[in-house]
Every structure is written in structure tokens, then in C-alpha cells.
């Protein structure tokens, strides 16, 4: 265990890093804005270049806030799933929850206009709410399926493979939908499907922030039963945990957090799996009361850093966010698989 002193130091360091990465995500971007001007705009004392003001206030600040929301939501849903399934490899992306959310969105966007009820989803904010509901439902359905299968299979790797295969099946169904949809709808879907923090605008944030906060609060309130779950389901039940209610609440929380972020940003790879492991390793901590806020901070930092890297210009071009998160996250997964035995031990699994 780390001493309380060292934990304080780590906490201060993380908050500093969070502040810095938020700041640099706003300062750095495809358009070069001199530091002095950027600072003036941020402090509101600028009367100068109005284009730069728009770029910072309408593009970069919403994008940075979205990165924080996405980093927190995905990391917390990854943490919940890892504890719930007692599987270090669980996360919304790997186990097909994102695919489920994608499929929900695909159904809404790609069949728009061809089914009467979808007309409801077509315009403006209604469109966003429709997509959000569809993604949340898609995520929850897959999560229920995975939960059901997890009762039947004992091996973590088997569940992982099941999730991957489920992802492929959903991907195939999605391709079929794409094949038969109109070019206009397809275009709408392709735009969404790339994974991007930059498409979220202020009016979306008014919807996104309360939903994500709600999901995070639900997750935090589950800390105690989650801690007990770490010691095994039977133990948790013997300690008075109503496992059915807790299971439902976890599914709701992951559905909201994973599904809604997928609805607004598209599928974002590997943040959900990598962050809980990095955080646990760093803090050597297993209490969810501490872990949940901690993965929020580490997840936000990672998402912001990935966004900064993706925005840096390589020959006048930016790289997709998922390329960066995969390069960062996939090695973590490989490391987990190699360390499986140790991780199992440290998670008190089996």
C-alpha cells in the first residue's frame, strides 16, 4: 500500500496534469494561435481576431470538455464492467457495448425516413435525443446478453472472445444496413461513425453533461457493493447486497455512460479498458470510492492527451482520435493478457 502522504502527492500531480492537458488541448490545434492571444481570449480580455475567438470558444472548449466527459464516462464504465464481470479485459469497446450502441444509432440514422416512427428523430436536438436513446438501448441490450453469457462461461478469455464475435456479428449487420441505405443517410452515419470529440457543440453539452453526471453519480453510489463484489458474488450476497438490483443498476450506469458517449462521439477505442488498469497500478488501490473519481481524472487526462496528439498537424493533416487511443490502449491490453495470472490474483478473481 502507498502511504497517505504519497497518495496526496499523486492526487496533486494528477490534478495538475488534468489542468495542464485541458489547457493545452485548448491552446494547441490545427490552426496556430499564438499563446498570448489564446490567453487573452481565455481571460476574455481580447478584442482582436474574432476568428480565433470563435475557434477557441466554439471549437476547442466544447471539444476539450467532451474529451473530459468521454474519458471519465468510458473509464468508469470500463471499471464497473471489470469489477462486475470480474474480468480485467472487460470494457465497453472490447465487449461489444460500443458496437451495440453503434447498431442502435445505425438503425435510427440509416433507416431514417423509411420507417414512419423515425421521422421523429430527424431534426435538430430531437435528432440528438433520438440517437442518444438508440445508443443507450443498443448498449444495454448487448450488456444484458453479455451478462447472460457470463453466467454460463467461466473463463475470462472466453467471454472476451464472445464479446469480440458479437462485435463482428453486429458489424456485419451494420454493413448490411449500410448497403441498403440511401446515400444521404449513409453519409450521416459515416460522419458519426468515425469517432471524434470535435462534433459536439455547446447545445449538445447541455444534454450531455447532466446525463454523464447522472451516470457517474449512480456509479459512485454503487461503490460499496462494487467493493464487496470484488470479494466474490457469494460473499457480497452474504453481506446483504441485493445482487439483482445492483446488477440492474450497473447495467443502467454502463448503458448510460458507454452508450451516450458513443452516441455523441462515435465509438472511442480502448480508453475504457486501459484507464482502470493504469489507475489501479498507479494508486495500488481497490476501493471504488477512491477508484471511481480517480479513473475519471486519469481517463480525462488520457482522452485530452490523445486529442492533443491527434490534433497536432502532420503534413497539414490531423489523425483520427481512434488511431491514437488504440496506439495507447491496445498495448495495455497486451500487457494485461501477459500478466493475466498476476492481475487475476490482484483482483481476487477465482
Amino acid at each position, binding site marked *: 500500500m502507498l502511504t497517505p502522504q504519497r497518495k496526496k502527492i499523486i492526487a496533486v500531480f494528477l490534478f495538475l496534469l488534468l489542468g495542464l492537458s485541458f489547457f493545452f488541448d485548448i491552446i494547441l*490545434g*490545427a*490552426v496556430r494561435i499564438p499563446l498570448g492571444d489564446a490567453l487573452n481570449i481565455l481571460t476574455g480580455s481580447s478584442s482582436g481576431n474574432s*476568428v*480565433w475567438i*470563435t*475557434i477557441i470558444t*466554439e*471549437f*476547442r472548449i466544447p471539444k476539450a470538455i467532451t474529451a473530459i466527459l468521454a474519458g471519465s464516462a468510458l473509464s468508469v464504465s470500463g471499471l464497473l464492467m471489470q469489477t462486475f464481470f470480474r474480468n480485467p479485459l472487460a470494457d465497453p469497446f472490447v465487449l461489444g457495448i460500443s458496437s451495440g450502441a453503434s447498431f442502435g444509432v445505425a438503425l435510427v440514422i440509416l433507416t431514417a425516413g423509411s420507417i414512419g416512427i423515425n421521422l421523429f428523430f430527424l*431534426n*435538430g436536438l430531437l*435528432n440528438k435525443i433520438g440517437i442518444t436513446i438508440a445508443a443507450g438501448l443498443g448498449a444495454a441490450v448487448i450488456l444484458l446478453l453479455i451478462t447472460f453469457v457470463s453466467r454460463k462461461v467461466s473463463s475470462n478469455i472466453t467471454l472476451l472472445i464472445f464479446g469480440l464475435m458479437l462485435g463482428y456479428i453486429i458489424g456485419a449487420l451494420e454493413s448490411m444496413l449500410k448497403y441498403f441505405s440511401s*446515400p*444521404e443517410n449513409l*453519409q450521416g452515419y*459515416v*460522419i458519426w*461513425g*468515425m*469517432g*471524434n470529440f*470535435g*462534433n459536439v*457543440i455547446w*447545445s449538445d453539452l447541455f444534454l450531455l453533461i447532466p446525463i454523464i453526471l447522472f451516470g457517474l453519480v449512480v456509479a459512485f453510489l454503487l461503490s460499496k457493493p462494487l467493493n464487496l463484489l470484488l470479494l466474490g458474488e457469494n460473499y457480497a450476497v452474504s453481506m446483504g447486497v441485493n445482487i439483482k438490483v445492483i446488477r440492474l443498476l450497473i447495467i443502467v450506469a454502463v448503458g448510460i455512460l458507454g452508450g451516450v458517449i458513443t452516441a455523441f462521439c462515435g465509438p472511442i477505442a480502448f480508453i475504457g479498458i486501459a484507464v482502470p488498469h493504469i489507475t489501479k497500478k498507479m494508486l495500488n488501490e481497490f476501493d471504488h470510492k477512491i477508484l471511481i473519481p480517480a479513473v475519471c481524472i486519469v481517463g480525462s487526462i488520457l482522452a485530452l492527451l490523445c486529442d492533443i496528439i491527434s*490534433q497536432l498537424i502532420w503534413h*497539414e*493533416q*490531423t489523425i*483520427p482520435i481512434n488511431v491514437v487511443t488504440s496506439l495507447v490502449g491496445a498495448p495495455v491490453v497486451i500487457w494485461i493478457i501477459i500478466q493475466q495470472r498476476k492481475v487475476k490474483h490482484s483482483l481476487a478473481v477465482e
Partner: protein
Amino acid sequence: MIIQNISAKATELIESGKITEVGDSYSLNIEKVFSLKPDILFTYGNGNPYIDGDKKLIQNGIHIASGTFHLENSPLARAEWIKFLAAFFDKEKEANDVFNGITDRYNNLTKLTQNISFRPTVFTEAQFGGVWYEPGGNSYMSKLLNDAGAEYLWKNDESTGSLKLNYEQIFEKAHDADFWVNVLFWAKRSDVLKNDSRNSKFKAFRTKNIYNNNASLNKFGFYEYWETGVINCDLVLSDLIKIFHPELLPGYKLKYYKRISDD
């Protein structure tokens, strides 16, 4: 000689069964092509029939001719590919006549804008999947816009393909542009906002100077611009001149382009 009504003619042939579908640009139905036993199969790609066509078809005696008109960097060079097609039908003379007509009309139109004093600024396309593909400064689109008497904002770029830019790069350069053309599938102002509500911050949106090439659609809802716009590049140019400098072509009616409507 002007190429007209290709679209109507093709529609007619499709309905009478003389033209049949053999797949889309990404997946050719090889068995169907083979069973039709064509004398020649025209494809497009990078110009290498072994890559652009299917090896099995070639091995089984199907002749493949692959064109690269889409890689040409000027509108006239694209239209000139009519000569390539004509050569297979012994119609070189007609093709030359058609192309000379296009060239004359095109060059006469560019004379109208050559010494023009005011060149409105223009940018194109829209954000797609987080990326904004903007034609390079040496592309045919850049040439077309400049020939139409506009100042294309990326004309000094040296690439011939598309630039992959992001929204803030476009916004910095084009927020004040006078015109915005070739905008995906948009037809109404609400389409512009649905793509991204920040699109309203462009001057061209406020001044209602957004034009798209979807004025004429064929029976199946596809853009005639993509069917006949390549060969009728003089008409495309006329459209653009009419948009940028209406006084130069009084009485001319837009064929391919129309203004984004107020819902």
C-alpha cells in the same frame, strides 16, 4: 455538337433492359459480367487494367479498358477522355468535333472572366467524418473556380488531390468567403445546420451564397452533375460564372447548380 440528354437516354435504356446493373464501383458482380459476354468492359482506377479490372475476367478473355479521367487536373483534360472512348467505336472524328466545341465554348467563357477586377472568394465541400476534404490548388476544381472568375482560397496550394483538413483550419481561412459551393447532399438551409450548427458562422451562410450541384436529378434521384458534368464542363463553367458574376451571362439559366433554399 453538344452532348445532351445522356441521362434521359440512359434511363430509357435501363428501363428497356438494354442497360443492366453489374454491381457498384466497389463490388463488381464478376459472374454477371462474364455471363453478359461484353466485347469490352470499361472501368476506372489508376490506369492499370490488372488492378482496376478483375484478373479472372482478363484470364477468361474479357477485354478491359480502364480510364483515369478523374485523375486529370483540368476540366478540359477530363472532357477530352471522350476521344479515348470514341476510339473503341471508330468515332474519333465525332469525338474530335464534340471536344473542339467544348474547348471553344470553354475558352470563350474564360475570356469573360480573364480581366475581371473583382474576384469573389470561394471554398467548397463540407465536414465529412471529422475531416474536411478540400480540393488542392492544382486540382481541376481549383482551375474551374478560378476560370469562373472566383478566388479559390486554396489556389496557392500545390497538390492535385484533396487536402484533408479539419474544421478549424477551414474556418480560419473561409469564415469570410463570399461563396460556398459543392456541399455534399445539402439542398436546404436546415441541411447545412444539421451537418454542424457552427456552419452558420460562415459569411456565405449569412449572405445565402451557398450553391450545390444538385439542380437536376435523374429519374433515380442521382445528380446529373456527376453523369454529364464531366463532358459538359463548359456548362458547369457557365453555371459557376453565373453564380459569381451574374452580370456576365444575362439571361443564362443555371443547369447543374442551385442556391441552397430557405427550407
